[in-house]
């Protein structure tokens, strides 16, 4: 499977509360609360870090899960976050999120 890079979509406000990231979408006020694993993926979404790297260096490191399961679950999680319009993906590294843009608001 080829690797994938991902970054935060625009028009989002996000804050980390305890170990969960809370995201508020501007155009329809939709609210999302990410669990700790999804929060780790969100925090790593800088457009330059690949999903494989996040699985290896963050998920397997911080959570009690084997690499194969972690890769499969992370792929499904990424797909759902993309489907919700919270993340964008590419098969190439992307420009880092602009911290001044709403979508790049630090969590």
């Amino acid at each position, binding site marked *: 499977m080829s690797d994938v890079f991902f970054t935060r979509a625009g028009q989002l406000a996000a804050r980390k509360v305890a170990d969960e990231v809370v995201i508020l979408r501007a*155009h329809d006020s939709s*609210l999302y609360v990410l669990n700790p694993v999804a929060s780790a993926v969100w925090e790593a979404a800088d457009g330059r870090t690949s999903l494989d790297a996040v699985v290896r260096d963050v998920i397997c490191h911080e959570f009690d899960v084997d690499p194969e399961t972690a890769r499969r679950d992370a792929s499904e999680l990424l797909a759902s976050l993309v489907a919700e319009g919270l993340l964008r993906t590419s098969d190439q590294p992307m420009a880092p999120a602009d911290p001044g843009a709403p979508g790049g608001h630090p969590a």
Partner: protein
Amino acid sequence: MQALATVVVDVGDVPVALSTGDPALAAVLQRRFHRFLTPSAAPAFHFDISVIPDGDDTGDRDEDLQVRAEGGLWRLRRGDFRAEWDPETRRGWIHQRLSPYAADSVLRIVHTLLLSRARGFLLHASSVVRNGRAFLFTGPSGVGKTTIARLAPDDAVVLTDEISYVRQVGGRYMAYGTPFAGELSDSGEPVSAPVAAVFGLAWAADPSHERLAEGAAVQMLMRNILFFAADPALTADLLETACDFADAVPAFRLAFAPDARVWATIQ
């Protein structure tokens, strides 16, 4: 238009002047906001209101609310009104049907826009002051906001049974009375107090309450805060305020039956 009457409605220490040449509307506004009129206050904002004639059936009366920022102006429209507001000049106009609801809605929207930049928000919640401390009770319609306000002891002051006004002042969150009424069909009292706690309501045979973690508190707040503007900067400000409030003010889930004994658990 020659203004025949101006009422100044002060909510949260922000006086807003409403001027109209229509005597019937002036009377409606004075009744609606009677506890919050401050004729001597210098208004922070000013709206001129004109009335849509009775026979004018243009427009869709069921049109949903739209709030848009265009060219530095806020434009608001709904089936029963059109409004425009310039936050720089602090002036605007409302063209509305003869009812108290349109001006009431415009005031709510204007206050949500102002509060989002002032560490504050309007919350679907009743609020009650007891012993100098404000308690907020939030949740969707039918969950008991009005009921718990009605059950409050005689020494309590009801700030509102429907829409609570919260703003940070001097490093602490204050709740202010509002004229925005729910089932009581009467406004709250124009007083304020520091917020001691916020409760998310649920029905249960026996009263109980449990402390919410900060993340759950933020979720509860965000689901009940009034917010109309699809504006990224204001959205970020609002989320930051909700998180700061959840950090500063304890939040609980309160299950209760319609019985005054519930107030023994609220400290």
